[in-house]
């Protein structure tokens, strides 16, 4: 039995959906969106290209070029829909799986690979893209996003922050603290929870007895569940939530109901804990196929368009692979760089000692 905070004991949670898995456009009384065919083609292109980025990274990991990869397979619509809702001034705080949002923020896909290849811990300038670094500790970034939003308030800026996290993260203390802070300070922040049903091997029942979006009401702000495989709905709801936040209406929780079609990471084996039929059922709700069907049905795109996107994806993957393989290992002494912004005597001493040690091998095999 589950507790339903919205009223009726067994009432199914509402799910905002604007595009059915079959590609049918449906209306919603609160969240709607008017997209031109060109905009829809743009979203389709985003979806296909980020799936390709992801696929190439998985392959690179399988071939030993990356130590690890966290696949976004199945979550493309949640990420592209929300990512395309952001304005340049908005700030996004990702987990380590937000490759689609990174794409929307203009981060070069190759720069995502550095941390998984082990050449750095984060390969882009967050301020340049208004896209923060990947955070690996679960839920920590929610507080950063709220603090950033408190800064926006103090600056009087026309902006909001958005923070990404998963269903597992909702059990973390930091996420709950961030809800409290956002609420009491009325911070302009959108909490975007991709409920992909699995926290590695643990299903949602291990995290919550109520639908996650309903958590928001206990903290004093609105929560909404959106079809996370519907890029239109994710865009519409996130756009509205960000607008509300920018206009001083405070935080909102969006639960994007989706599915992790792949493993947690390339180190995981989901066959140990979930049945194959589940994946087959979710494949029918694929986030890309429904947009393709919509474009076809309405004659907003022809086969040439789809072929061109596919060709672009092939080129993108090829280019990404090439530049990944060319990525140089850092120099050993870089280990001492960027630990402190200002000179630090201990690090200077250790750096000097290690440089001398390395130099002692010059001319010989180490």
């Amino acid at each position, binding site marked *: 039995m589950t507790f339903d905070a919205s009223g009726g004991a067994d009432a199914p949670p509402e799910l905002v959906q604007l595009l059915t898995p079959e590609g049918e456009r449906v209306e919603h009384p609160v969240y709607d969106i008017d997209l031109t065919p060109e905009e829809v083609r743009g979203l389709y292109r985003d979806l296909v290209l980020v799936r390709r980025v992801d696929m190439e990274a998985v392959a690179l990991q399988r071939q030993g070029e990356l130590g690890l990869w966290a696949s976004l397979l199945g979550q493309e619509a949640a990420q592209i829909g929300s990512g395309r809702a952001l304005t340049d001034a908005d700030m996004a705080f990702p987990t380590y799986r937000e490759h689609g949002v990174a794409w929307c923020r203009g981060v070069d896909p190759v720069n995502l690979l550095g941390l998984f290849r082990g050449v750095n811990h984060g390969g882009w300038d967050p301020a340049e893209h208004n896209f923060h670094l990947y955070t690996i500790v679960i839920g920590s970034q929610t507080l950063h996003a709220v603090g950033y939003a408190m*800064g926006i308030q103090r600056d009087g800026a026309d902006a909001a922050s958005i923070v990404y996290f998963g269903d597992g993260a909702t059990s973390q203390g930091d996420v709950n603290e961030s809800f409290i802070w956002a609420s009491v300070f009325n911070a302009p922040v959108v909490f975007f929870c991709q409920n992909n049903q699995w926290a590695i091997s643990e299903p949602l029942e291990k995290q919550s007895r109520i639908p996650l979006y309903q958590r928001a009401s206990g903290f004093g702000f609105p929560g909404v569940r959106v079809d996370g495989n519907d890029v239109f709905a994710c865009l519409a709801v996130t756009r509205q939530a960000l607008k509300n936040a920018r206009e001083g209406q405070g935080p909102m929780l969006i639960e994007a109901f989706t599915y992790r079609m792949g493993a947690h990471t390339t180190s995981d084996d989901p066959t140990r804990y979930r049945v194959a039929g589940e994946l087959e059922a979710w494949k029918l709700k694929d986030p890309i196929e429904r947009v393709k069907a919509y474009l076809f049905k309405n004659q907003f795109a022809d086969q040439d368009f789809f072929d061109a996107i596919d060709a672009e994806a092939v080129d993108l993957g090829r280019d990404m692979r090439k530049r990944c393989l060319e990525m140089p290992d850092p120099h050993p002494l870089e280990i001492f760089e960027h630990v402190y912004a*200002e000179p630090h005597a201990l690090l200077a001493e250790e750096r000097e000692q290690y440089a001398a040690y390395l130099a002692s091998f010059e001319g010989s095999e180490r």
Partner: protein
Amino acid sequence: MTGTLTLAKAINEGLRTAMEDDPKVLIMGEDVGKLGGVFRVTDGLQKDFGESRVIDTPLAESGIIGTAIGLALRGYRPVCEIQFDGFVFPAADQIITQLAKMPLRSLGTIKLPIVVRIPCGGGIGAVEHHSESPEAYFTHTSGLRVVACSNPVDGYHMIQQAIRCDDPVIFFEPKRRYWDKTEVDRSATPLGFDRAQIVRPGTDVTVLSYGPMVKTVVQAAVAAEEEGRSLEVIDLRSLNPLDTGLIFDSVRRTGRCVVAHEAPVFSGLGGELAARVTEACFYSLEAPVLRVGGFSTPYPPSRLEDDYLPDLDRVLDAVDRTFAF
């Protein structure tokens, strides 16, 4: 401009000056606003700078540090108060995994000029969790600077230096010294906040300490002088990085070294100091470096804290033992 200030008031004035100098400086913590902090260190600041710069936060330490990081990413310089030493642990995750490491993660594009003020140490008859010395957890974490003030002059100047620093700084304040008074010259050029200081010159043995123990060690040095022993007392001030140049120079002159801190001796900062002094000053040492500090027990109930905290006699006992070699 000179005046007599308590340590609490000196830090308060240092905070005030920093806030006047830079509108990006914020204060955040539990009860720091209207109440002025449980030790009154932030007294009057919210009244003068407003609620958006002196922020009474929800009662959640991880939240304080986590949101301070977000504010710093937006260009602010938050000064966070952790109400008592033993309550820093809920924030330890944000401090260790995020605050200390995010600048490196960003390859230097992110700076986190955040100060975490922690009233520390025992001696005030408090209940559990209110008398601890957690500095070694933080000196062990790369990416943090760790300092400890011991007197009003340093309280006034070091807090401002910590705020101006572009690195995260853990700032320890010895709570049992909050009400000690000295003359503070506000216009004096302060010593660098990563420098140690000889607070009492001597010739026979170097005693290293910091925070609340500096006063105790100075008292021990006065008592030792009556017995004809000359103690050189060094206030480390900066615990990471250590000002090893000044320390080594002193030990090479005196040939003996004792380290005194309130924290348990085992795996404490004293171990690091002893190892470094031994390595650098080996041929000058007449005796092994000795350590005096808390026992390897949790901080005891307050009726026993005088037994736990190293006092003048335990410092002198260690000094005596260095002469037994």
